[in-house]
């Protein structure tokens, strides 16, 4: 019995070692390309969110909030979804003072691992639930009904939005006012 146990441990350990090396190798080989892909994807979503081109001003993220100095604020947020972290971007218009957030412009999900099918609405920011959030008062975000079958996902996104919206009101750096 003891010999059996030793044999299994030895076999599993040696296989795990070889597997670990293989994984570390693949990870090292792909890491740069993977993170470049994600950055590119996020930039594409940002461009779509702001309708066309990114402003000429250099990126200026403070506390994951970026004042574009043209009445818009963009923020990044992260939510703990059903199957893993959900990363999202959204834009707010700021009429008058930056301290009173105006309307929500749009929400785009840049990264998620939610169940395909049920959470497909995350991939279509221009129709469905995400589109319904556009032009709402930021104060009403929390009142939105969750998507049937994806309650955890929708509520996580709502909570992340509420939290990030509160962050936008106290970050005022980046613009001359």
């Amino acid at each position, binding site marked *: 019995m003891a010999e*059996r146990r030793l*044999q*299994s441990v030895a*076999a*599993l350990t*040696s*296989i*795990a070692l070889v*597997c670990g090396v*293989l*994984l570390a190798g*693949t*990870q090292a*080989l*792909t890491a740069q*390309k*993977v993170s470049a*892909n994600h950055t590119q*994807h996020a930039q594409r979503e940002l461009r779509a969110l702001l309708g066309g081109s990114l402003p000429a001003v250099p990126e200026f993220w403070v506390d994951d909030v970026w004042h574009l100095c043209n009445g818009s604020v963009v923020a990044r947020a992260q939510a703990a979804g059903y*199957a893993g972290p959900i990363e999202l971007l959204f834009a707010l218009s700021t009429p008058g003072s930056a301290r009173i957030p105006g309307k929500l412009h749009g929400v785009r999900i840049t990264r998620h*691992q939610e*169940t*395909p*099918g049920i959470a497909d609405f995350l*991939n279509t920011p221009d129709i469905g639930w995400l589109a319904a959030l556009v032009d709402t008062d930021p104060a009403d975000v929390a009142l939105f009904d969750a998507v049937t079958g994806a309650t955890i996902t929708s509520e996580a996104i709502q909570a992340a939005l509420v939290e990030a919206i509160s962050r936008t009101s106290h970050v005022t750096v980046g613009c001359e006012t």
Partner: protein
Amino acid sequence: MSLATTFTESAFRANPAWSQLLGLCPLLAVSNSVVNALGLALASGFVAVGANVSISAARRLIPEFARLPCFVLIIATFTTCAVLLMEAFAFELYLRVSLFVQIIVTNCMILGRAEAFASKHGIAQTVSDALGTASGFAIALLVLGATRELLATGGLFARMDLLFGPAAHSWHWQLGATPDGLLLAALPPGAFLVAGLLLACAKVLLRRFAAREQRVE
């Protein structure tokens, strides 16, 4: 058995999809277009060959009573590698089908071949068995993917650029002027309906072949 016989045996007669009914979850979920189906077929093939060859090479080291954890460890490693490679080199496709690539780990088609074949045969035999299994699975995925894409959009080979680069954009072939078709075919219930009908066709054909073979004998 010769290598060629092993290959055809596992690709057609013992096909994972239509004769063993294994790996149906990803088969149904991802087969809504040719490009998705091909992406999953390639990833599954990579895992099947890589994992089964490693298992065959290490089969004398793996103790009988601890074989399942060892197999799963090896299969999981190759699956993670497949996901990373896809994330790096086919990012758009990764965004669409990554979850189903991740669950290749639990695809009983691969674990089944590891247990039934790779752990008992040499590397050469295992390579042809794994290639046969992977090809059989790929054929099933592609037939189902093509049928569903044709029914749902009236076209074929849309967005092949996700896998083959911008040049493949022009491969898209459209029956009518506008994409128009039976939306049901692209949705999950459509997967069950189309797969069921195709499976029935495959059964009839296989029975015909078997009957003819008997008559010849």
